[in-house]
Structures are given as structure tokens and as C-alpha cells.
């Protein structure tokens, strides 16, 4: 049976058009994976020295164990965003003589051989070797190693439990926040010193191998719970059937003041609020807004004025970039209909443009509190906002006409590369690097004021030429109409 499953998986993977079409992304993913492996190897080999240096009076092994708690938390968060339960397409299997439990066991078993579970080994094994080299008893360290592998697997299955809950809740991040918050909070406020418990636990397992039964029991419990949830879902009427959601209608009559583009604006707003992928994109705007907080509080950036422009472009243009780069792929599901309807392309594009301009204005206003870190920052954000409105909005609309990839609106946004092609990577250069470089150059040659002025003037130039630019962009879209219709009607 398993042999058949593996065979199916193999074909599904290599015959998917996704694999064949997006070599660039695959290569990129491999590159990321390798760099992570390198990082973990480095961590594994070096941490013993580092620990000895920072905590010279303590047992490095015990100290390392006391840090495991933070790893667990970090791992859960990372997996939540990156790792998905490797569901196979079970629908055709339901009517075949395959036991449900076999399918479930296979899916869960497959998740255990995920990259995310091998990655920690690259740190754990070198660290163990270093410890043994350092004179720790080999039997003790090997027991510890097994305990760590069990911990990794526990996290693996724990993550799927969290994801199962998050799939059901309306606010999808809530279960993660609750679990991580609870773990962290209990420890931080000394209600239950989980961090110390976990550290001591691992140390005592290493000294007392019989205690390894405890993590095994926890793992078994997690597995059993996953098994239970998954088996319940293996019916057509539960998870495989699409969930019917109650309509949430909002009053959008205020868009009427935009005249002939009002129907499209209403459509776009509904698009954003009613689909998973766009909704999580809108949620990510919070991150875009708070992006400056990563830099501004640090004194080392206080005098690096070119950073102001970069962060300004990024935070005021966050929606513009994320939403704009997939125009018109957002409408790919019904693009044929739009093209046969009585619409003017220019109206369609102008509605997207107005939406992006509004988002820039809103993001700028919400970002005004950054003035706390200096008026120069506010000024730079303002100039960046104008530049976004005048130049970037047009660039991204133009770039959109190169989109040839369909988007499935019902998938999450974070690390979802569907619909991403070389265009999306290339367009980032004029969008972010160009204004930043220009700003840095003039700032360095002439001064801060001149750099601000240049960005604003360029932006205003774009606004003045708006009508003309839109004509060029519209023509570009009309020219690639057939190609887009053809590409959007293919399933990726």
C-alpha cells in the first residue's frame, strides 16, 4: 500500500505544472534550504565554545538545555508559517478499498520525514559530537540526542494540532498566539517555570535514560490526537467539502463618489475582505506599518538618512506592492468574463490605482507617530509616499501586464509563491532600490533637503502625467489580452 502512495506522491510532484514552470522558485527554495543547513551546522559546532565563553562557571550542557525552551517556541512559530500537513489528495482514495487509518498513518508518517525535522539534526548531532569530545559521557549524550529528536517530533505534531485549530477559527493566528503566549507567559510570570522544567527534564533524561519514556509518551499522545482529528476529517462532508461561509456584507455606498469606477472598487474591496489570501495580505499591513520600529529605535540607524527613504517607501507602499504586483491576477478566476463584459480597461485599471493611492495615504497617516523618532523621518516618509503615488503605482500597474500566473484566492498569503514569477522579483528593483539609491546619492552629494525635494518632484511629475501614463499602461494590457486570458484559464 505504502509503495503505491509513494508512487502517487512522486508523480503528483514531478508532473505538476507548478514544478515544470517555476524552476526559478525551486532553485531559490533549495538555496534557502542549504543556507539554513549551513547555519544550523555552524550553530551546532560553535555553540559549545560560545556557551563556555559566556557562562564560564556553569556546566555548558545544562545551560544549553535551559535554552531549549526558546528553541521550542521559535520552532513552533516558524513551522506554523512554513510547514503544512502533507495532505495527499485523498478524495479519490475514499471509494477505493484502502483503510482510512492507513491513509492517516501514511500522511502523519510522511510529515515526520519533513525537512523541518531534519534541519535540527544538523545542529543537534554536531553539538553532541562536540560534547563527547569535550569529555561528557557518550551514553549520556546519545540518550540526550534521542530525547531531542523526540522533542523535534513532538513539535512537529503539536504544530499540526495548532494548525487544525487555526483552520477552524476565523482569526487564523489566534491558536498560535494562545499556545505560544501561554507557554511564554507561564514561564515569564513564574506561574509554571516551563523553561527550567524543560531544561532540568532534558538533563535528567540524559542522566537517567529510563525517563526517555516521558517524551515518548507525549509524542504518542500528540500523534494519537492528530490521528483522531485527521480521521474525522476524512469524510467528504467535513473538510474535503468546501466550507460554506455566511456572507458578511458591508455598506460600500461611500465608493459611489468615485463615479464610474465605483463598481470595480466595491468589487476590489470585497475581493480583499472575502478571500483568505487577500485577507491575510491585508493583515500583513500591520507588519508593514510597524516595520520602522525594527530600525528607528536603534541608535546605529539614527544618522543613516537613506534608510528613512527605504523604510518610507516600504511602509507607505506596503499594500501598493503586495496588492499591486498581482494585478490583474487577482481577477484571474473570472478574467474571461471581465473581458467579454461591457467594460473599459481604463476604468478597471483606474479603480486599482485609486485603491493603491488611498492605501498609501492611509499608511502615511497611520505612520505619523514615527515623528517621535525625529521630524526628518516624517518628512522622508512623506516624500516616499508622494513617490509611491506618482511613480511606483504606475510602475507596478505596468508590471502587472506581464503577469501570466493564475492565483487561487483561497490560500494563505505568507510564503505562498503561487502567482509569483520572475516579474515579481524584477519589479522590486525599480520599486524600492531606485528611490533609495537616488535618495542616498543626492543626500550624500547635496543634502537631505535636496534629496527629499527630488523624491517629491518625481512623484508630482508622475501625478501630472497620470492620464498619459495610464494610456500607455492600458494599451500594454490590451496588447497582452489574449495571452493573459489563456494563461489565467490554465490551472497551475
Amino acid at each position, binding site marked *: 500500500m505504502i509503495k503505491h502512495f509513494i508512487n502517487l506522491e512522486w508523480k503528483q510532484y514531478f508532473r505538476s505544472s507548478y514544478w515544470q514552470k517555476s524552476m526559478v522558485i525551486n532553485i531559490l527554495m533549495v538555496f534557502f534550504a542549504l543556507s539554513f543547513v549551513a547555519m544550523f551546522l555552524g550553530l551546532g559546532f560553535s555553540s559549545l565554545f560560545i556557551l563556555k565563553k559566556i557562562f564560564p562557571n556553569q556546566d555548558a550542557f545544562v545551560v544549553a538545555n535551559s535554552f531549549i525552551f526558546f528553541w521550542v517556541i521559535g520552532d513552533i512559530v516558524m513551522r506554523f508559517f512554513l510547514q503544512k500537513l502533507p495532505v495527499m489528495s485523498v478524495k479519490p482514495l475514499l471509494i477505493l478499498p484502502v483503510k482510512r487509518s492507513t491513509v492517516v498513518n501514511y500522511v502523519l508518517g510522511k510529515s515526520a520525514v519533513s525537512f523541518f525535522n531534519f534541519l535540527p539534526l544538523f545542529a543537534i548531532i554536531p553539538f553532541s559530537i562536540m560534547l563527547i569530545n569535550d569529555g561528557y559521557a557518550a551514553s549520556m549524550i546519545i540518550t540526550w540526542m534521542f530525547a531531542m529528536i523526540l522533542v523535534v517530533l513532538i513539535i512537529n505534531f503539536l504544530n499540526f494540532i495548532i494548525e487544525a485549530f487555526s483552520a477552524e477559527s476565523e482569526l487564523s493566528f489566534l491558536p498560535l498566539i494562545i499556545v505560544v503566549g501561554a507557554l511564554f507567559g507561564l514561564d515569564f510570570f513564574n506561574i509554571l517555570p516551563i523553561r527550567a522544567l524543560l531544561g532540568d527534564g532534558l538533563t535528567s533524561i540524559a542522566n537517567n535514560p529510563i525517563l526517555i519514556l516521558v517524551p515518548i509518551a507525549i509524542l504518542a499522545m500528540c500523534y494519537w490526537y492528530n490521528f483522531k482529528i485527521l480521521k474525522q476529517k476524512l469524510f467528504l462532508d467535513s473538510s474535503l467539502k*468546501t466550507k*460554506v*461561509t*455566511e*456572507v458578511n*456584507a458591508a455598506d460600500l455606498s461611500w465608493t459611489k463618489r468615485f463615479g464610474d469606477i*465605483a*463598481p470595480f472598487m*466595491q*468589487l476590489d474591496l*470585497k*475581493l480583499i475582505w*472575502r*478571500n483568505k489570501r487577500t485577507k491575510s495580505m491585508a493583515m500583513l499591513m500591520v507588519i508593514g506599518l510597524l516595520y520602522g520600529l525594527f530600525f528607528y529605535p536603534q541608535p546605529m540607524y539614527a544618522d543613516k538618512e537613506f534608510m528613512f527613504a527605504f523604510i518610507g517607501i516600504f511602509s507607505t507602499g506596503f499594500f501598493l506592492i503586495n496588492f499591486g504586483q498581482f494585478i490583474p491576477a487577482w481577477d484571474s*478566476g*473570472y*478574467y*474571461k*468574463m471581465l*473581458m*467579454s*463584459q*461591457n*467594460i473599459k480597461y481604463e476604468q478597471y485599471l483606474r479603480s486599482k490605482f485609486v485603491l493603491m493611492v488611498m492605501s498609501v495615504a492611509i499608511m502615511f497617516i497611520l505612520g505619523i507617530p514615527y515623528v517621535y523618532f525625529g521630524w526628518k523621518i516624517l518628512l522622508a516618509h512623506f516624500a516616499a509616499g508622494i513617490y509611491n503615488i506618482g511613480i511606483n503605482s504606475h510602475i507596478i500597474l505596468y508590471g502587472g501586464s506581464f503577469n501570466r500566473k493564475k492565483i487561487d*484566492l483561497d490560500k494563505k498569503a505568507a510564503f505562498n509563491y503561487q502567482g509569483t514569477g520572475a516579474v515579481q522579483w524584477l519589479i522590486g528593483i525599480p520599486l524600492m532600490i531606485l528611490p533609495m539609491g537616488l535618495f542616498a546619492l543626492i543626500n550624500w552629494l547635496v543634502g537631505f533637503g535636496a534629496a527629499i525635494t527630488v523624491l517629491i518632484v518625481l512623484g508630482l511629475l508622475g501625478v501630472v502625467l497620470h492620464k498619459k501614463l495610464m494610456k500607455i499602461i492600458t494599451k500594454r494590457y490590451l496588447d497582452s489580452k*489574449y495571452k493573459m*486570458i*489563456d494563461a489565467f*484559464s490554465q490551472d497551475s
Partner: protein
Amino acid sequence: MIHTKELSKSYNGTTVLNVEELSIPKGQSFGLVGNNGAGKTTYFSLLLDLIKPSTGRITNNNVVVDQSEDWKPFTSSFIDESFLIGYLTPEEYFYFIGELRGQNKADIDTLTSKFEDFFNGEIIGKKKYLRDLSKGNQKKAGIVAALIGNPEVIILDEPFANLDPTTQIRLKQILKDLAEKQGVTVLVSSHDLMHVTDVCERIVVLEKGHVIKDLETNLETLKELEVHFAGGAMGSQEEE
């Protein structure tokens, strides 16, 4: 109303459609039949300028469809579910199409109220998104949306597929009325010979991209079509 001249469409050297000449006068109910791959959907896609013809042209009310967009105001269509916007409710979808076609909400409400029977109480006021409706109900919504804004040409690809018998009969009546009473040019394609002969005044048979029969519908037409397609089936059996 619709003139097709020397139209052909080929992909990588394979010709999928080749129509010398085909004229459909105003107010005709026109049926297109043929087996899978005969070129029915290709013809409709060309008519809607969704794909580019390899040679030739189609004019719709004297507008060359791949050169001007002026045919759009009086032409409406429903080809498949990809014409629906999944995250809208049927009402919102109707209003949206209505706005594109210069109709206000009241116009749309009047129109949809006429189709209460057709909807069978499963479309309007259900607070469901189109993507959550069954295939049949999606089709009903799409067909009615194609009737919004008093179009002069209506193009429906396989309108009878996926519909229940009651709805099929109601749809036939709607289509007949459109052509006879309102002078609308109705183009449908179907695999169901009985339905097309019931609805259409004229039936064209496509085979491998060519028009091989062009019939005025009368009492004998269904028989003739059945013989034709059965002959094809027998012929291929003999070949094997």
C-alpha cells in the same frame, strides 16, 4: 447580425476550427451541435474575442470583434463557471453586471423577480457566495446574468448541462421567448440533440472544426441529427 468569414483557428499547426462562411440573422435562435472537440467552444470564444483568430474575422452587428470593443454593449454570454465571481453573492453579482450594463438596482430586481420560478428559491436571498452554490445553481445564476441589460445577442455554451429536468424545460421556454418575442439573437451549443431541436430554428453541426450540416429545424430534424451522429458512432465502430 453575425457574419463569419474565412475564420480559422489553429494551435501549433493543428487546425481546430475552419469556417468558410456563416451568417446568423437578427432574431434567430441558433444551435451549435457536435461531439467533443468539434470546435463549439472555440467558435464562441472567437465570437467573444477571448482568443485571436488565425485567419478571417467575425463581425457582430458590423463590428469586427477583434478590432473594436463596440460589440460588448449589446452582447452577453455565459460560457462556464469561470464567468462567475466566486466571492460575491448572486445578488451582488447581478448588481455588478447590471452596473457594467447601465442598469440600476431596481432594474435588476425587476428582472430577477421574473425568474423566481427558474431559480426555484435557491439563489436569491440565501446569503451564500456563488462559489458555495451547487454547479446547477451556479449555472442558473450565470445564465440569468447573461440576460441583464437587454442584450441583442446572447451566447450560451452548453446551457442545459448540469440542470435538473424542470429547469431545463423552463430554460427552453425562456430562450424561445427571447428569440420569438423580443427579437434577440440567441446562440446555444449543446450535446443534447432534443433540447437544441426544441429551442433552435436553425442547427449547425460542427465536426472537427468544419460546418458539415446547416439545417432549418422542422419535424424531421431530430431524426436526421440522430441518424447523423449514430452513423458516426457506427462508422467508428466499423473502423475499429
